[in-house]
């Protein structure tokens, strides 16, 4: 699998996706294709290594999901992105495709409050279970006093 082959495969299967660059391929897909694109990248492009997954808060433009997956054998890397609509925090999970996405998505839920549909165990991972709010959202007040230690 070379990079031109991968590019043609992406445009063949996901014609609507917006692709920039080739090292890595920055692919922006609609949120509902988030999981199917990951499945395609794993099975067809051979990207079996799940590198990381996180999110970006673009304030009134909504949240953006980012995940990077690698084909370490052939040097093909895909940085997949998906924009969520403003006010939306629901998204399909990547755990059925990549088992390693489990804790990454728990952290993403912890920090951004994104609810991943299909995640087997979606609860907070870093902050306490009684924490209120999701601190990496831009709307979270930085100096929010925490009740016992004001």
């Amino acid at each position, binding site marked *: 699998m070379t990079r031109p082959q991968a590019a043609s495969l992406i445009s063949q299967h996901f014609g609507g996706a917006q692709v920039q660059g080739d090292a890595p391929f920055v692919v922006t897909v609609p949120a509902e294709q988030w999981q199917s694109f990951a499945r395609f990248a794993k099975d067809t492009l051979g990207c079996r290594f799940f590198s990381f997954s996180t999110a970006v808060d673009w304030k009134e433009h909504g949240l953006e999901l980012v995940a990077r997956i690698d084909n370490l054998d052939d040097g093909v890397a895909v940085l997949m992105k998906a924009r969520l609509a403003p006010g939306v925090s629901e998204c399909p999970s990547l755990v059925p495709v990549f088992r390693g996405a489990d804790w990454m998505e728990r952290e993403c839920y912890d920090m951004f409050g994104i609810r991943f549909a299909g995640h087997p165990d979606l609860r907070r991972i870093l*902050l*306490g279970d009684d924490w209120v709010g999701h*601190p990496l959202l831009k709307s979270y007040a*930085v100096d*929010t006093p*925490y009740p*016992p*230690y004001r």
Partner: protein
Amino acid sequence: MIPAPVWRNFKDLQEYERLRQQRPEGDKHSALFESVTEGIHSFPGGFVVTTAADAFLNWARKSSVWPVTFGLACCAIEMMATFASRFDVERLGMVPWASPRHSDLMIVSGTVTIKMAPMLLRIYDQMPDPKWAVSMGSCANSGGPFRHGYHVVKGVDRVIPVDVYVPGCPPPPESLLNGLLLLQDQIAHFRRTGKRAAANPKVD
């Protein structure tokens, strides 16, 4: 009587209440000791004996302050250096001890996160009275550079009472050593009233 809890500590209050209900007539040995002490103190010239006893006990207290081995962050590296042979706090009678049950001093060396604070309080609760706490470094003093983080307790004095604040980021071993000497000076003026000595303005 069982001495009343001195520091506003919920756990201490609970323990005090439990002890008081178990022994409503009070602690006989302490009461006896206290009456003897009061008797000696009211005797003409007796204050010389009691103050001498206080001074002796305080000398013993300040000469064997055992800090609990408890490091939180990068300040702990400087704390370890202070405990090591070059700066050698053992000549002041300080032995880092790996059990809070046998320790007198807690050096809070580093950032206290909101998730860590209950554990810190728990270790502090496990230490026997009288106990002291040194807040080491900017993070423990006020939150330091992480003050505006969402997960940082803005000063460890919101969790436990602190006797000496050592500034610095991190404080070098000399600085911590100075703080420990100030603490010893405070302990030398410790009184059985349970009131803490006023902060010592003397800085070398």
